């Protein structure tokens, strides 16, 4: 396969996302401009200008009407995707690390950093979606503060039915809250238990593409973990040899893709280790390391999989975005046991 290199950002990438149909890619980086790209040919639709600090996160609603950006400049901005106009700006108490729309697009979740004497918090804002969208309620409708027995929240997502909020924390625990009341439901220590790593903060949460009934979390503890949404049990563990910044589950095939890498300042070695910054493919069910995709010159910070499973996009510390479209060898690979299973299925139907 031949990836498309997107070089619109001047600093390291922080998040990339596809819209629901997968025709657009939304990217944010440590420079203050977000970019929107056509995924099929890498053409840039436009840039979103107006933030004054690092952009940590971006999300697009399910109808590709709005996208939201969260920035270190203490603001969340709402943009119309069609023309790149900022329609509203929420002021946040601290830098915004993550933004995410609820499945019904009526709510926007944000994770704010624990700095300047403020606690790390999940704030839920109401989104006036169908009405006068330049007129929004400035105050959050729900605030979920860090619980005293927990550590600061680093990432959070709505569950696919919008009932729960799942949050990842600095000390490796994953917790679940009621999305309407903010009530704490349960948590699981998902990271920092598979090895003896000291840094274990959760770096990414992505839902299962088929129905969101389970999700994957990645962590600096060099692991990614698959967790069932209802029971909150750990289903699978994928172990890597470097801190992981991102993890995604692929549709169509039973794989997960992990991204990360040793931070630049820790890498002082030979040229032969250059390009060790690879997307890592694991078999979702067997937890086996089955392949790598090279190309980045720095750790991978973010990975998003095309909703139809035909490819994926990665954003790196090196400032590049790489858009990959899988070729046949990807779809045609099966383990023998999988082939047997398919043969049986084909024979019986």
């Amino acid at each position, binding site marked *: 396969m*031949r990836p498309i290199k997107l070089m619109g950002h001047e600093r390291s990438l922080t998040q990339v996302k596809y819209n629901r149909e997968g025709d657009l890619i939304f990217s944010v980086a440590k420079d203050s401009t977000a970019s929107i790209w056509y995924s*099929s*040919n890498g*053409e840039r639709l436009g840039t979103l200008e107006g933030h004054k600090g690092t952009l940590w996160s971006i999300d697009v609603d399910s109808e590709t009407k709005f996208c939201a950006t969260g920035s270190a400049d203490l603001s969340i901005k709402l943009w119309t995707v069609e023309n790149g106009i900022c329609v509203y700006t929420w002021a946040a108490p601290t830098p915004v690390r993550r933004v995410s729309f609820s499945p019904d697009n009526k709510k926007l979740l944000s994770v704010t950093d624990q700095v300047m004497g403020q606690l790390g918090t999940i704030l839920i804002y109401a989104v006036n979606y169908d009405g006068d969208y330049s007129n929004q309620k400035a105050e959050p409708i729900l605030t979920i503060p860090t619980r005293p027995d927990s550590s600061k929240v680093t990432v959070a997502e709505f569950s696919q039915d919008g009932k729960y909020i799942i949050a990842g924390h600095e000390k490796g625990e994953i917790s679940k809250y009621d999305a309407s009341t903010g009530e704490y439901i349960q948590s699981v220590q998902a990271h920092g238990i598979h*090895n*003896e*790593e000291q840094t274990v903060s959760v770096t990414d949460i992505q839902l299962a593409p*088929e*129905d969101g*009934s389970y999700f994957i979390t990645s962590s600096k503890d*060099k692991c990614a973990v698959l967790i*069932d949404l209802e029971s909150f049990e750990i*289903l699978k563990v994928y172990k890597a*040899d470097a801190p992981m910044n991102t993890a995604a589950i692929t549709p169509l095939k*039973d794989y997960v893709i992990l991204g990360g890498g*040793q931070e630049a300042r*820790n*890498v*002082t*070695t*030979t040229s*032969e*280790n250059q390009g060790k910054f690879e997307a890592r493919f694991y078999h*979702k*069910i*067997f*937890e086996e390391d089955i392949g790598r995709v090279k190309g980045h010159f720095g750790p991978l910070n973010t990975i998003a999989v095309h909703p139809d499973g035909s490819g994926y996009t990665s954003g790196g510390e090196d400032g590049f975005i790489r858009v990959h479209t899988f070729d046949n060898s990807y779809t045609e690979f099966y*383990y*023998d*046991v*999988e082939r047997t*299973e398919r043969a049986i299925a084909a024979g019986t139907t």
Partner: protein
Amino acid sequence: MSEQELLAEVERDLNIDDIDFSDLEEQYAVEKNFGLENYVVVDGAPVAPESKAPVLEKVLRKLFSKVAQVVEGDDGIYMPVEGGKTKGYLFVQFKNGEQAEAAIKNFNGKKLDANHKLYLNKLSDIGKYTTQVNDEFVEPEIADFKSHGYLKSWLQDEQGRDQMAMHFSETVGVFWNKKKNEPEAAIEPRKGFTSKYAKFSPRGTYLFSIHPQGIQCWGGEDFHSIHKFVHNQVRLVDFSPNEKYMVTLSPLPIEIPDSPEELARCPFGPESKGHKLVIWDLTTGEPARTFALPPHLEGQKEMPWPLVKWSYDDKYCARQGPDALAIYETPSFQLLDKQLVKIEGIVDFDWAPSGVHLNGSKGESEYVLSYWTPESSNQTARVALMHIPSKKVLRTVNLFQVSDCKMHWQDEGRFMCVKVDRHSKSGKTLFTNLEFFKVTEKDIPVEKLELKDVAINFAWEPKSERFITISNLDNGNTNPAIPRNAINFYAPETTTKNNIVTTKYKLFAEFTDKHSNTILWAPKGRFVVVATITKSNGEIEFFDCNYEDDKTTKKGGKNDTNVKLLRTEKYPGMTNMSWDPSGRFLAAWSSNWMHSIDNGYRLFEFTGNMLREEPIDQFKEFIWRPRPASLLSSADKKTVRKNIKEYSAQFDENDAMEADAATREAILNRKRKLEEWRAYRAHFANKNTKENNVEAEVIEEIKEVIIEEKVEAVEQ
């Protein structure tokens, strides 16, 4: 204001409680043991009739006065008398405590005459230690014998596999080597097993872990705790070749605790106070002897180790001091002939690693050690062989313009090679001479091999007379990227002239333009790896030194000089290598102690074929468990060699079964996981709802297509 007014003013301001009198209190404080330290109890004196008492007193007074002043008159010596006889002990008062100490130091344990040995103790000590003692004799309880099981059980493995310890993160585990397959844990890996490193004893019987309080010894099939060796903050550990003794070193001097309870737990006696080096008896677990660090090593950052070197059978050990060698006999650990061996300027010494059959010694094994001394103003540098226990110098070689010497004993003790780095008169260029001591021949002839360049490494093949050097061509170019090292293979060449058989070392193979810096012979010889281990580079080259091909078989099977490079393997990040005891496998690893890049290990066959690669986070060390010497006689070995085909067939079969089992296991495991997953997903089967059935629309789009692409290398 008058003086009085002033004083009154001061007093008013001063509160007497606020004044700090501690300095005065200290100055005039009455010491607890006031005067008591001047008294010494002398025991072991003759029991004399009362009439002779004054004479005895006079004799003793005179004796002690040699080193200390005894208080004049009756206050000086009190000798109790009972039933008309002295009681064999007396009390002596010295002028002060220091003199009392001096007297104890000089006379304690010394003989007064042929029949009487004096024991001197401080009166305060007698008080301190006897109050706790029960007057009644209590039979000491002898602890029940506790079996540690068969300590060599791992040698009985049916497949003859070897064990290794692997140290990663804070965990140490002992595993069976399963070649290609995942190592099988022999015990559950233990977290926080050691605070520094783990070590096997030289014959593999025990595993040791290091802790701040001392050393813990483990053994048996389950690696249970066998003994604790209390040595505070111990850093370095070494063993005698036969596992009889262990040597430990701590940067902290040994302290003898005051309280009786702690004293009971302290393994050391008062004579060990301030010592740092301890020799332990491994079977009893008790210290055999302790030493202070020689003054020239105190405060040294890099400690030469081992500090104690052993003869091949643990009979003797020796320590090197400034201008002298201290040789001790075991198990008494007393100096051989009660004196040091003076060797002016000694730099280094080594024991012959095996018993030496000296010419004319009628087949008896002798103890030999070698040492060297550098050049001084009126003396050449010297390398000498010394016979122990006679301390007779067997052979000396004088050398000039010597920069450095390294002594390399051949493992059977037949040869000793001295790698002499010499400099030209101007001191600008360096080159190496090799001086071979043929230890078993008459008068120990020395053969000299002059090399043109500097040999940076030398290694004898085990049980053989062949050796390898790595030489460094010094052409003034210091660019580290240019390989300038050469690997040289040498073997003895025998020539017969006028019925006199002479052997000379001949270069028979050479590999140039290398970065190599490390030589590691397989423990049984023939195969050798030469590697490059540097920060930026890692490469292993596997050689067969008896390569059999058509050429050699034609010559009648003699192929001692046919070297073949079997394979070259790159391994960037590699920090260490080690052969397993059988010489079939080589482990190489990248240790977290050196850097954190690609930590993990690789396992190779002796041919260089990689069997296994396992990246392990924070991997630290791969430690093969050593094996004791084989019990088979050479006749037994011959039979095995003769029937090797039958044996190998058996092992091949085992291997095949093993491999099959592992694959099957993996497949079954996957099958199970797949079934579990499908069962899990079945719960959600009907919940998948949304379907997008919208008519597709046709659009036109601009895409870039690469018609032609070429890649060229650009010269820089």
